């Protein structure tokens, strides 16, 4: 049975967590090893899932042997496989990075437990084919992230974590309320079945109400602009690997993926929702980058850029045209790579120079060649300079805007991109170039494992553009794009593959 790998995406991280909690306390090095091995297996399996998808089509796993409308099902389709690769690849590199970085903190085994639980939660959200199950795993990832933001237990961290936890709890309540409304009118929880019921029922005011609830709930989770207040506090406060994880993949799998899955596959996209997506995307793009311009705290600046870049993703997907969806998805992947890299860079700087203030840095280029080199690549990539991956996805989004007749949004995206470039030129100018400050004379380059993951991510940034070549494109991006564009035909595809 080929589809037996689907439960492994949950079972591996959970098993690693429980083992870790039993013996990680006593045997120190084991928790490092366990987490690295577990995330490596996940990354391997997720890449394997691409080939599996190519050979046997959409896979549905019936948990407990109950066929979909009755029990819970796990679904592996194009979008799922795409997101799994994004999440698990970044998680593996970050888990390598944490081996050295987390030496600064006490009780490392708790960190690894929470980290693996977060990964399990995200994989659960992505692979689930059931609305309530999605909520349960979303909460696992969210609770783990509340604890991880407060991991340093200092003033700012606790305060940011409280804010984040309250916002997250409100968002979850809205999502659960939306699920209750959906259950009431469709009397089923399976996504495919629900999509069929809703299509049969036609347009109804309840669906509109649920759309508003989901837009609020998932919008809070993915920090779109009216709901973004928690992100600039929460993401910088966490330890650097967790900032990378939160900004890189958590807001995407909990926010963007869940939103796209619910709106496109289950509720069915309408012009109003699509317009709201574009509106929110454009707003987040500009507000995020404008707020970032005035920042001197490196990690806070990066957090504001996350808001802005999520805006690009939502704008692209909201366009609803094949090219727009492609651009949005590709930018999602690229952003998870270069934003994780930038946060890891900031962590490396903090590790070596123990400051996050740009004004106190300067001339780190000579002392930390690897960090500054990789951060240069990431900065150029996020700003959209040609050979790097960020350029291609932004280009596709802008072309898609113009193709769909939304010239204003296209221009708006170009403007935001220019502002991003100026903001990152500031980072490069103050942090890595210029005079070496007196205080920073005796800093050293970071240890091996940290360098390793930064270099790996930088390499992916550099060659990310090749994903658009037909060899990779058809199996990776195209299938994800097709899943989104299929819309409510999702139900037909899922029920077809059970037979």
């Amino acid at each position, binding site marked *: 049975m080929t589809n037996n790998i689907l439960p492994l995406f949950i079972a591996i991280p959970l098993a690693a967590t429980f083992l870790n909690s039993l013996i990680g306390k006593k045997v120190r090095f084991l928790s490092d090893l366990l987490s690295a091995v577990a995330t490596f297996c996940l990354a391997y399996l997720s890449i394997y899932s691409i080939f599996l998808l190519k050979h046997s089509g959409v896979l549905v796993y019936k*948990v407990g042997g109950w066929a979909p409308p009755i029990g819970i099902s796990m679904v592996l389709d194009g979008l799922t496989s795409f997101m799994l690769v994004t999440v698990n690849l970044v998680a593996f590199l970050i888990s390598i990075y944490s081996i050295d970085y987390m030496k*600064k903190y006490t009780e490392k085994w708790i960190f690894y437990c929470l980290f693996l639980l977060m990964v399990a939660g995200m994989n659960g959200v992505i692979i689930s084919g059931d609305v*309530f199950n999605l909520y349960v795993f979303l*909460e696992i990832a969210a609770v*783990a992230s509340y604890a991880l933001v*407060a991991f340093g*237990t*200092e003033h700012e961290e606790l305060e940011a974590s409280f804010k984040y936890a309250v916002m997250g709890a409100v968002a979850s309540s809205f999502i659960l309320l939306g699920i209750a409304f959906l259950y009431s*009118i469709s009397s089923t929880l399976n996504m495919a079945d629900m999509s069929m019921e809703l299509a049969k029922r036609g347009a109804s005011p309840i669906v509109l*109400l649920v759309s508003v609830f989901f837009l609020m709930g998932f919008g809070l989770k993915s920090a779109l602009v009216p709901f973004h207040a928690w992100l600039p506090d929460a993401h910088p406060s966490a330890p650097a690997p967790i900032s990378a994880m939160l900004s890189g993949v958590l807001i995407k799998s909990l926010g963007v993926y869940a939103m796209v899955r619910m709106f496109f596959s289950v509720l069915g996209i309408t012009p109003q929702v699509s317009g709201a997506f574009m509106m929110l995307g454009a707003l987040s793009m500009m507000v995020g980058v404008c707020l970032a311009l005035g920042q001197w705290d490196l990690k806070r600046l990066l957090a504001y850029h996350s808001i802005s870049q999520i805006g690009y993703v939502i704008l692209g997907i909201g366009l609803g045209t094949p090219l727009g969806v492609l651009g949005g998805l590709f930018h999602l992947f690229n952003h998870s790579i270069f934003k994780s890299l930038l946060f890891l860079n900031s962590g490396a700087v903090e590790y070596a120079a123990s400051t996050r203030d740009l004004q106190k840095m300067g001339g780190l280029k000579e002392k930390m060649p690897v960090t500054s080199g990789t951060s240069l690549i990431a900065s150029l990539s996020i700003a959209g300079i040609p050979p790097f991956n960020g350029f291609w996805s932004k280009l596709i989004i802008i072309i898609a805007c113009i193709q769909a007749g939304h010239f204003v949004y296209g221009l708006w995206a170009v403007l935001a991109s220019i502002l991003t470039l100026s903001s990152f030129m500031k980072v490069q100018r103050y942090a890595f170039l210029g005079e070496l400050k007196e205080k920073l004379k005796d800093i050293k380059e970071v240890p091996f494992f940290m360098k390793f993951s930064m270099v790996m991510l930088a390499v992916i940034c550099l060659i990310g553009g090749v994903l658009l070549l037909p060899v990779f494109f058809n199996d990776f991006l195209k299938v994800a794009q097709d899943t989104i564009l299929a819309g409510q035909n999702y139900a037909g595809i899922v029920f077809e593959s059970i037979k």
Partner: protein
Amino acid sequence: MLELQLLLIFMIIGAIIAVKEKDLLSSVIAVGTVGLGLSLVFLILKAPDLAIVQLVVEILVIIILIRATIRRDLPFSTSGRWFFNTLVTFVFIGVFLVFIYLYIKDLPQFGQPIMKIAQRFIAEGLRETGATNLVSSVILDYRAYDTLGEATILFTAVMGVLAVMRKVGRKK
């Protein structure tokens, strides 16, 4: 269903007292009454499993909240734009409730759910799982995977509380 509406109004009054009360301890106790009211409502709505769980969880929440509250201050401060902010909040909630009121008519009538897959659980549940208590058969057989998530989230909370309660977070 008069008793149901009365209990709901009782819960709303309890909640308003909990929100408005200036003493934190009284406020927590008022939340306790809301929870007990909820437990009774579950009993009226024919959900005895939930009534038991709600009662037990209520006690635990109250213990945790009282522990967080006890012998603590309650500074009562109003920010400069208090009136404006309150007005905005009320307008937001008003709009929310009006929309709910207009749209909620489209839901199936209260007391007449559609029960598409629930019918199957009721008709076949005893034969397929052997459990007399259908709620048990749903959470531990048809949807056991959710229960794994539930157990995991409790574990996550234990780990999270352990992490947050560490006295020293960073090595100096």
